[in-house]
């Protein structure tokens, strides 16, 4: 199956681990990710905070390129996905013509997690699991923007998405119930207001531990960065001894099917997941 792939800027930089694991599991599921030719940055939070026109025109150029390719678009970054969807809705509405941008659409814009957890993929994945992630107790952390707001994301389950939990069950892991799965990690404030990230993310650590979690599973590289890269700093600041590895869902897929590269992806994290995986007898 061929789809248009819109990686976004982070996947060429700090989130190369996510990018590599995506490439690994896509080929396994016979998904051909055809990178959108000449794609540009969606402008992220910065564009919609400072210039709403820019925040539409940047993703609109990508949509125009995707329209030429004519296939469904898959985006692994929650923010990219959200900005593409906002642009889609705007261009299809009355504002589209005012902006002088013609757009017919006719293809679907997917968030990667949503795309890969369609029933057909889960079934074919189930047949490929060789190393079930037994006893791995995890909380699924979706973050904000793959789900919200439903008028943009077209999701009926924006308050309580379940597809990552379904995936973990297929992989043999134990997803735990908790109320913070779509809470905010602070995302774009990471550099300008790290103090805010500390408070938000520490709250997530505490809630995850209270639910009995040993790790997080995420589908967004900004969530991963805030939960993983800041863990040492936050632990020090709050005088705690946190050890909560933060996996991308694609990494767990790779682990469970015995993808030879999976340990390499995990070695790029700051919070080393190996001790946990060894303890669980997974690696």
């Amino acid at each position, binding site marked *: 199956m061929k789809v248009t792939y819109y990686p976004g800027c*982070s996947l060429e*930089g700090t989130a190369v681990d996510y990018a590599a694991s995506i490439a690994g599991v896509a080929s396994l599921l016979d998904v051909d990710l055809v990178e959108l030719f000449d794609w*540009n*940055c969606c402008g992220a939070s910065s564009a919609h905070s400072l*210039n*709403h026109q820019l925040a539409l025109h940047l993703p609109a150029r990508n949509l125009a390129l995707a329209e030429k390719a004519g296939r469904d678009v898959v985006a692994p970054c929650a923010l990219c996905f959200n900005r593409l969807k906002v642009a889609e809705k705007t261009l299809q509405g009355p504002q589209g013509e005012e902006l002088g941008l013609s757009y017919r659409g006719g293809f679907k814009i997917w968030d990667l997690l949503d795309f890969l957890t369609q029933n057909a993929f889960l079934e074919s994945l189930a047949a490929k699991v060789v190393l079930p992630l037994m006893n791995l107790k995890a909380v699924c952390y979706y973050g904000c923007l793959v789900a919200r*707001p439903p008028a943009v994301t077209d999701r009926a389950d924006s308050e309580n998405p379940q597809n990552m939990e379904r995936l973990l069950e297929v992989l043999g892991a134990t997803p735990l119930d908790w109320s913070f799965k779509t809470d905010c990690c602070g995302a774009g404030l990471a550099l300008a207001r790290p103090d*805010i990230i500390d408070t938000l993310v520490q709250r997530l650590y505490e809630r995850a531990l209270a639910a009995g979690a040993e790790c997080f599973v995420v589908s967004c590289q900004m969530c991963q960065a805030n939960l993983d890269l800041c863990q040492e700093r936050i632990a020090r600041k709050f005088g705690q001894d946190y050890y909560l590895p933060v996996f991308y869902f694609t990494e767990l897929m790779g682990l469970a099917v015995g993808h030879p590269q999976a340990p390499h992806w995990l070695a790029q994290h700051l919070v080393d997941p190996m001790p946990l995986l060894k303890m669980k007898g997974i690696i």
Partner: protein
Amino acid sequence: MENPTNQLLRPQYVLPEQLVKANLAVTSCFQCRKCSGGCPLTFAMDLLPHHVIRLALLGQEERVFDSMTIWVCSGCQTCTSRCPNGIDIAGTMDWLKEEAVRRGRTLPDDMVATFHRIFLESLRDAGGRLSESGLLRRFTLFKMRRQPDFAGLKADLSLGWKLWKRGRVRWRGPSALRGKGEIAEIFRKVEF
């Protein structure tokens, strides 16, 4: 100074009219406070989200434009998703940020606004894709010029080093796009 209650008794219509024209229907707010109830950032705010909506509706420009809240809002969309009257509260926060900068107002703390500006400049100058390392360099320089913090710099560098060792830093930014002219045209058109 005029008693703030008297100010509230004399609503100004310019701001709410501008907002409604931008599809931000603050006039539909009935102050149920659901937006503030679900907002994860209230601990860092001076006005709660429902205050911002109410004050905007009353045209209290100074109070909303000078509040930290609009800059602290992370755009998580919880409020917008839950408002029973379909008000795009997160969109209102964005509109107020943009307008505050457009009017050249002195911001209560310009860290966030400066970060966004540097982000967009980096993206523009790189020809269409963001160079994360370029953004980091520029933003760190700005912070150091503003207020030298060597402990903070050391922590940033040590994090950068750990990422570098793991192959997660791309020192050279992305090359400019084939369509870099189109990107430049977009930036010109939106006057950034």
